[in-house]
């Protein structure tokens, strides 16, 4: 085999390409420099603003943007990206169209140059190696960074100046050669299926019950209906209901994270919790929680009189809005998921599936009729009570995020005692009948009573101190640092910067613990991890900062964005320069051993 020089080989390739296929095939991926065009602009106050113009169909990874000065990584403020939540790739933040990052002025000398490294992909096609550019601080002139300066493993390729004039054998999607994942991502079908199942589960909650009289009223009101007719009516009712959820999905996907953020505020959490308590009370028969009678009557009248497909659809749409609040926590979870994806169509379809899932049993009900439901009786009452207890439990669970732990424990204890009394008290007034079921019930009741008492007593004795209801809403300066001293609490980025500066001056490594008063996992970590002697000893040489996210406001959001923190508890280790040490981040409550390993990594021991 004769040796061929590169040029010869490339030319050969080129000829073969030209001979073989038409222009539709010869789409070559854009060179990285063309796909991601970097500009630098000086702002006297802010610093240097880096702007990437990103070609359509391409995206840049936010976390891959690295700026170095004299070989040392410096911190930048990169604007929030679009979340890319691919079922396969996990959650990342990317920029499409434009990406902006600012290098703070105070970190920059007058002269010299910084090296900017960034990396991105063409959607569903290829991923580019890291690109490194050197920016002269005096002139803002951008040049390819020399080999070896970039962070990427193969900077020799990064420059990409030697773009060969070879046409590629690249089939274009227009030839039917679609890349593996479609525009909505490969997981759409599975997402929809999952939401359908989710909806089916939701339909088992009593929230759907109010729909049954509406639907049956509609079906029965018009006299006897043929099966196909009931089917058509039920289906249109359910489809409209699903459409209502789909519409909700559109709004949520549009509004993006705002909803998620507002759902996390103590007020929203407490409000939802209150809704559940109200629902529970209604289940216990304190009052009938139904639509205002006038509405229900009107709906039933409309249903009875018409029975047309159009009115069925109208009813379905309305019903969805009515039960909406009732299914809050699961629905909220679904909405949050949709909001995170940020994709309007996907979110809408997902919620549509959810509505469909909820409606399927209704269709069955509509067709087969109320015959399938057993007649009412004591059992129905019992079922309602069970749901009442579940609702109260949900209310406590939700509230536990914002109320002090002791109060939560007391509430759980109270619930257990109540359940115990519910199970046992009737037996006291009845002639003893020693049937196994009765015995089991009494036994369970005693156990619940006992557990409840333990919880209440435990709560009273707990080392979380007296109830501090104000703390949870951020009125009182918040995070309790009783378990370990030495944490400096910050709640804004400026405070954090000052603390990091302090660490730099002292040459200390820094640990930033993102925490919040409403975060139960954070409490667990304080108790089980930070309070341990071993941990304390290992952290002794470090500057300990606690970033307080109790108040979910703008400053806490910027704090989180600064280190791309998803939520508390998150622990970030920084070297004395204020740069995060890779692979040391702790997200969520972890065990002592794992935490010690992270410390070891962070301190290089």
């Amino acid at each position, binding site marked *: *085999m004769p*040796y*061929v*020089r*590169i040029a010869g*080989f*490339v030319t050969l*390739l080129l000829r*073969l*390409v030209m*001979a*073989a*296929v038409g222009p539709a095939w010869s789409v*070559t*991926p854009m*060179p*990285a420099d063309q796909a991601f065009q970097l500009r630098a602009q000086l702002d006297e106050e802010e610093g240097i603003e880096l702007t990437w113009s990103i070609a359509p169909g391409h995206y840049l*990874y936010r*976390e891959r943007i690295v700026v170095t000065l004299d070989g040392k990584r410096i911190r930048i403020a990169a604007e929030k990206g679009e979340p890319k939540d*691919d079922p*396969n*790739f*996990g959650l*990342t933040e990317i920029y499409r169209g434009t990406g902006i990052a600012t290098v703070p002025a105070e970190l920059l000398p007058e002269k010299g140059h910084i090296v900017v490294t960034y*990396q991105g*992909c*063409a959607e*569903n*096609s*290829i*991923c*580019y*190696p*890291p690109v490194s550019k050197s920016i002269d601080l005096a002139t803002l002139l951008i040049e390819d960074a020399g*080999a*070896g300066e970039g*962070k*990427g*493993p*193969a*900077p*020799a*390729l990064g420059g*990409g100046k*030697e*773009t*060969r004039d*070879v046409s*590629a*054998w*690249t*089939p274009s999607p227009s*030839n*039917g*050669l*679609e*890349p*593996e*994942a479609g525009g909505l991502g490969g997981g759409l079908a599975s997402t929809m299926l999952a939401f359908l199942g989710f909806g089916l589960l939701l339909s088992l909650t009593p929230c759907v019950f109010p729909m049954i009289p509406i639907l049956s009223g509609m079906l029965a009101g018009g006299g006897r209906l043929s099966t196909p007719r009931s089917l058509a009516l039920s289906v249109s009712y359910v489809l409209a209901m699903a459409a209502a959820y789909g519409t909700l999905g559109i709004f949520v996907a549009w509004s993006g994270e705002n909803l998620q953020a507002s759902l996390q505020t103590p007020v929203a959490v407490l409000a939802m919790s209150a809704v559940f308590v109200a629902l529970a009370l209604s289940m216990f028969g304190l009052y009938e929680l139904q639509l205002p009678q006038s509405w229900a009557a009107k709906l039933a009248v409309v249903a009875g009189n018409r029975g047309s497909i159009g009115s069925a659809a109208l009813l379905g749409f309305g019903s969805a809005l009515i039960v909406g609040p009732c299914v809050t926590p699961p629905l909220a979870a679904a909405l949050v998921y949709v909001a995170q994806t940020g994709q309007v169509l996907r979110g809408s379809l997902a919620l549509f599936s959810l509505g469909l899932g909820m409606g399927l049993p209704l269709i069955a009900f509509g067709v087969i009729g109320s015959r399938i439901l057993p007649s009412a009786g004591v059992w129905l009452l019992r079922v309602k009570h069970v749901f009442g207890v579940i609702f109260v439990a949900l209310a406590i669970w939700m509230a536990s995020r914002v109320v002090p732990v002791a109060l939560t424990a007391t509430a759980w204890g109270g619930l257990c005692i109540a359940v115990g009394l519910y199970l046992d008290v009737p037996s006291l007034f009845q002639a003893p009948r020693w049937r196994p079921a009765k015995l089991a019930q009494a036994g369970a009741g005693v156990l619940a009573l006992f557990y409840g008492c333990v919880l209440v007593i435990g709560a009273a004795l707990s080392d979380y101190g007296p109830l501090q209801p104000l703390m949870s809403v951020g009125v009182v300066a918040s995070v309790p640092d009783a378990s370990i001293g030495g944490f400096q609490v910050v709640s804004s980025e400026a405070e954090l910067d000052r603390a990091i500066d302090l660490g730099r001056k002292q040459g200390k490594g820094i640990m930033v613990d993102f925490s919040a008063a409403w975060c139960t996992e954070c409490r667990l970590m304080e108790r089980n991890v930070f309070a341990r002697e071993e941990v304390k000893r290992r952290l002794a040489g470090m500057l300990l900062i606690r970033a307080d996210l109790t108040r979910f406001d703008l400053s806490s959001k910027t704090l989180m964005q600064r280190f791309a923190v998803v939520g508390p508890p998150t622990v970030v280790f920084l070297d004395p320069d204020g740069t995060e040490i890779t*692979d040391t981040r702790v997200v969520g409550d972890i065990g002592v051993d794992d935490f010690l390993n992270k410390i070891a990594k962070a301190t290089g021991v």
Partner: protein
Amino acid sequence: MNDPISRSQFLRLAAMSALLVIPEQARSGDNEITRDMILNDPDAPVAGNPDGDLTIVDFFDYNCPYCKMAAKSLEKIVKADGNIRLVYKDWPILAETSIVGARLALAAKYQDRYLPVHHALMDIPGYGISQEQMLEAIGRTGVDQRRLDADIAAHAEDILRLIKRNLTIAEAIGLQGTPGFLVGAYRVNQALNYDGFVKVVADARARAKTGK
């Protein structure tokens, strides 16, 4: 069993050294590329039918999500077709751990376990794969880890040279990023699905028939 800390530290050091060395050698290295180097590099792992009438060269990175997507279709067509020879070119360009992955896989070749290790690494979805994730995935392949460590150390030079050759070739044929494929005479710098591979393979065969 080896101490995992020292092992991972070693790998990291190895990756760092490759970082420093590769660009240097890539520049000073031979700027002559041969067809043989691309298709018949004796050190490059090969799969499929060794006597197949068509060779596909796969340039990939263990941190490249789209490579992983395309790899499934590629393996499928190689199997279904039965007459394709597949050459793996580890092309670690995306991140530091890419080099770690390439070294692990290529070192496993010395105990004839390249393919299981390669597949294990490709089966970790996404990008930004940590070294720990890689080691964990490899641990499940039943590869002899002690031997792997020994081979990484003993054959460090050879592995590095192979990676360097791959880098040079990929650059020479003008690949912009991962994944890249040579399918016969065709260069495809894009992730393909199964149908895409079917079409390119058919075209490459047709080309080979009429072109010579």
